């Protein structure tokens, strides 16, 4: 039987119809769960009108008892459902209202989990390391307090070379050692000699680390700085291999669109030697103040390992050849990030550290 049919029957009954109409109006006007509960109690509570009515049917004639009982129960069912439906609606509204009251000011700062930082130079060193690891290189290290032999002599630097003077190189007194050939390495290149002494070829290594020169600090000089040294020794290594390796590195580091240029140069421990320039990112190569009008920025020194160096470490230059390169980390940082003064790197100013 359709709902409408029994509602029509209920409406036709004066007493049940009255209850129905009143209950419907009460339901409609119930504004919250509490009022709705009042409606339920008023009709379905132990003393509710419908409950009382249904309790009273046992006193009716059998036929009337059946009719009123059936319609009364249908009405009860209808009312229970209507109460549930209305209750659901009211609860949704009430919950929405309650949640609205929990609104927060989303513009307040979040709870602090203050971030730390890696030093820009460390990040750049890792970036350089990763590019070369990708090309098959391993990382090696050597001492910062070094012997003249490794820093100069075995790197084919003549005893009278100006870079060895007291005005260019820090010499070190190590108490108890009594020697005057101990210095702060002026480059990471001595690691080349140490690693070749310790390891037979082939060799593909890079050596990042600190180096020291007796420069009075200014915007472009620091008595302590960082270099990354590279060395590849194998059968048949060519100057072309050096070029390809450093072109790949330079573009990875500075951008695939950058041009790379190799210029002949001189270093005591490589021959042929080269300086490597990358096209200026400020002016795009047309010349500006940063590149001093040349369109190029010097970033690397490199060359084929001098046969004399192989002689010092017992490699046979007729059997193997190799290339070596070295780059200044601070210089790369200055160029890549536009930091105007090398001294900033060692001030440890948090306002700089937090930028990178």
């Amino acid at each position, binding site marked *: 039987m359709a709902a409408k049919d029994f509602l029509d029957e209920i409406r036709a009954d004066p007493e049940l119809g009255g209850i129905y109409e009143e209950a419907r109006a009460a339901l409609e006007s119930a504004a919250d769960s509490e009022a709705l509960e009042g409606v339920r109690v008023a009709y379905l509570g132990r003393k509710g009108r419908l409950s009382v009515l249904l309790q009273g049917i046992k006193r009716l004639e059998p036929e009337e008892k059946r009719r009123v009982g059936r319609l009364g129960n249908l009405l009860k069912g209808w009312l229970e459902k209507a109460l549930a439906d209305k209750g659901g609606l009211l609860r949704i509204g009430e919950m929405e209202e309650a949640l609205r009251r929990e609104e927060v000011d989303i513009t307040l*700062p979040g709870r602090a989990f203050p971030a730390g930082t890696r*030093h820009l130079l460390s990040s750049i060193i890792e970036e350089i390391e990763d590019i070369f690891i990708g090309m098959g290189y*391993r990382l090696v290290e050597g001492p910062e307090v070094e012997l003249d032999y490794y820093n100069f002599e075995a790197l084919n630097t003549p005893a009278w070379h100006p870079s060895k003077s007291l005005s260019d190189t820090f010499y070190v007194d190590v108490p108890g050692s009594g020697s005057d050939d101990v210095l702060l390495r002026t480059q990471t290149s001595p690691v080349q000699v140490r690693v070749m002494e310790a390891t037979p070829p082939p060799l593909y290594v890079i050596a990042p680390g600190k180096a020291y020169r007796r420069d009075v600090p200014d915007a472009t000089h620091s008595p302590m700085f960082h270099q990354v040294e590279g060395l590849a020794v194998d059968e048949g290594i060519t100057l*072309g291999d050096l070029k390809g390796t450093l072109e790949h590195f330079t573009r990875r580091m500075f951008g695939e669109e950058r041009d790379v240029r190799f210029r002949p140069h001189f270093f005591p421990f490589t021959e042929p*030697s080269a300086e490597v320039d990358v096209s200026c990112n400020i002016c795009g190569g047309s010349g500006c103040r940063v590149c001093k009008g040349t369109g190029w920025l010097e970033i690397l020194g490199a060359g084929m390992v001098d*046969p004399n160096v192989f002689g010092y470490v017992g490699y046979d230059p007729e059997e193997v050849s190799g290339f070596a390169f070295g780059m200044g980390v601070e210089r790369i940082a200055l160029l890549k990030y536009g930091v105007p003064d090398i001294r900033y790197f060692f001030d440890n100013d948090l306002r700089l550290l937090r930028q990178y």
Partner: protein
Amino acid sequence: MRVSLEWLAEYVDLPASAHDLAEMLNGSGTAVEAVEEIGEGFEAFVVGRVLEVKAHPSADRLSLCRVDLGGEVADIVCGAPNVRPGMLSPVAPPGSRLPDGTRISEATIRGVASRGMLLSEKELGISEEADGIMVLEEGAKAGARLSDVLAARDTVLDLEITPNRPDCLSMLGIAREVAALTGQKVKSPEFALREEGAPAADAVRVDIEDGDLCSRYAARVIEEVGIHASPWWMRRRLQAAGVRPISNVVDVTNYVMLETGQPLHAFDLDLVKDGHIIVRRAANGEAMTTLDGVERRLARDDLLICDPSGPVALAGVMGGEHTEVSASTTRILLESAHFDPANIMRTARLQELPSEASYRFERGVDPGGCVRAADRAAFLMQELAGGTVRPGAVDARARIIEPVSLVLRVRRTAAIIGADIGGEEMASYLRSIELEAEMVKEDGGEDTIRVTVPTFRPDLEREIDLVEEVARLYGYGRIAPTLPRSSHNIGSLTPQQGKRREVARILAGMGLHEAICHAFISPRWLEILDPDRQCLPSAPVILRNPISEEMSVMRPLLLPGLLEAVRYNLNRQVAGLLFFEMGRTFVPRAREKLPEEAQKLGCALAARWLPKQWHRDAEDVDFFAAKGILERLMSSLRVTSWDLRREGFPFLHPAQSCAVSIRDRDVGFLGLVHPRVAAAADVPPNTAVLEIALDPLIAAALEPLPYEEIPRYPSIQMDLAVVVDGGVDAGEVEDVIWEAGGELLREVRLFDLYRGDQLGEGEKSLAFSLSFYALDRTLRDDEVRSVYEGIIAKLAGGLGARLR
């Protein structure tokens, strides 16, 4: 090396643009550092004749000049001391602009109107310095444009000459490079020397006593010279090269040095006793006064040029004052010699006397070019100083340095370069730089090139030196980029290197900032940190030649740099002073030349740990901030075998410091800095520090981790609050709990510490949360309860603890 293109063009045809020339030189190994234009805009200046010079009415140093500018006479105020009536000088009229950009306008100087400016060579940009206004040569007309009477237009390239290329420290050497790159031959200067009178050998005698330091000493004699200023063209070229003109004779020596690379020296022959030159080592302590008026004390290794009465020059470095050419000089002894490069470098450095001459000698001049340079200079003295040149040069040679012969293997050269260059092509490159190169084809063997290297290229001693010449003249730009074809290269970080990166990331992840501090510190730090040298070395590693005392000791700890970082930021009101550094410390080792370089990790935390926020109060740094960092680092690295032990350190707070150990080995310290240190270092009193050796940390972090079974049965949590005497450490209580807890106890966490009214005097309450579980079954309450009771009993018995 500053190269005037106007001058260079005398020896070789130049490309149309300076830019092209610069590119060419860059590509062949002569780096162009700057390109400078000289004499630009001289059309705007005019020639003025000074008619009258009067004193300025209100300024002593200024003069009031009436200057004829051709059509008009202008009043110009001038500050130069050399202004005289009748002289011709360049004038910048109002509206013109000086090479440095200064705009000249009509001005009133100390109450007197000045219409323009009389110019010095410095203001014209043709000289580095000037003593007064420029004096133009007679013959120019007042009012003429300066550009029409003064040939000043030039482009100067500033070249970086690498130390292996002494030949390029000369105009002819650069010309040789340009000629090789453009397929030309160098046009050497041609001159006809007219020799007159008795042979030079009648007037001069040369004895080389120390032939190891001087292979050759050539002398010429030029007489009847008149000393005056050099002509404009020579002065201008010298100035373009950065050399100050002095007088014709001295200028000629400099000019020929710049032209040929051979340094020359002119003595006043009348002041050289007996005309007798002796080249010998100095006696220890021997003294001489050089041209600059400085008396110099010399030693056995310094080489001297002497006459029979004593030194007349410090060989290759500077002439002596006594024999200097002066205005009254008429007879010149011209020296053109070859000295040992290393020796000249030593003397020039010891005497702190770098000069254009020593610069060239120490890199190596051409021993074969001495006489020709002397001839060239004699010719110019003849031309410019009216000198008569005695026939012949006195050419003393202690030994003859012969050209070097080398063999270049063609296939090997191509293999090193990695380019397919033929033997003939290689030979042609070598010939282009004036080497003799002869192809030798060997049957069945490798083609070779026999090369004879002229003495002006002392850098070419080995085959590889020639390979470099071939490569640079072929052009690095033409070499195809390749990668090594090796299968031997497998790139990776070692596990240790990987962990080291991880340590840095963990610390940065905790909010610490990585610092990089100088490895050299002030000795003051040692006094501040450890005045009695209880734990720092009494004799640290020090620099023998520091830049300053502030940077003279190699750090034995990272601590000083980190405290400096704290102070630096504090002084700038920057908050969040949480630093770490990973770096090396330096400590001498017995009987070792090199110190121990230990990789350390240091942290310094100061002032605020967390700032005040809208939902919570600020947190200040204390001992437990540093301890928390260490705990978190250890747990992130999965290191369990570490411990702290109460221990004093002279730089740490005596009651808040401890030693850190890993696997029972002490690796460093942790604590609050000592108030004495905080005050001296100017850091907050609540500065907590931590410094440990990295290698043992990383070794522990690399220990393999065994699998620990995950519990499948529910655990039982119980809280335990006990009251103990204030002197009992929480750790002691925890140790007892673990000991008594047996295998069912799995976790102990201290969550509360209370001292106060509810407890007795000197007591404290510690509350722990305990967690029990078994791997094979669900625990029963009664068995946990009995363990719990056991713990309480042990605590009561061992530590006098009672339940709270």
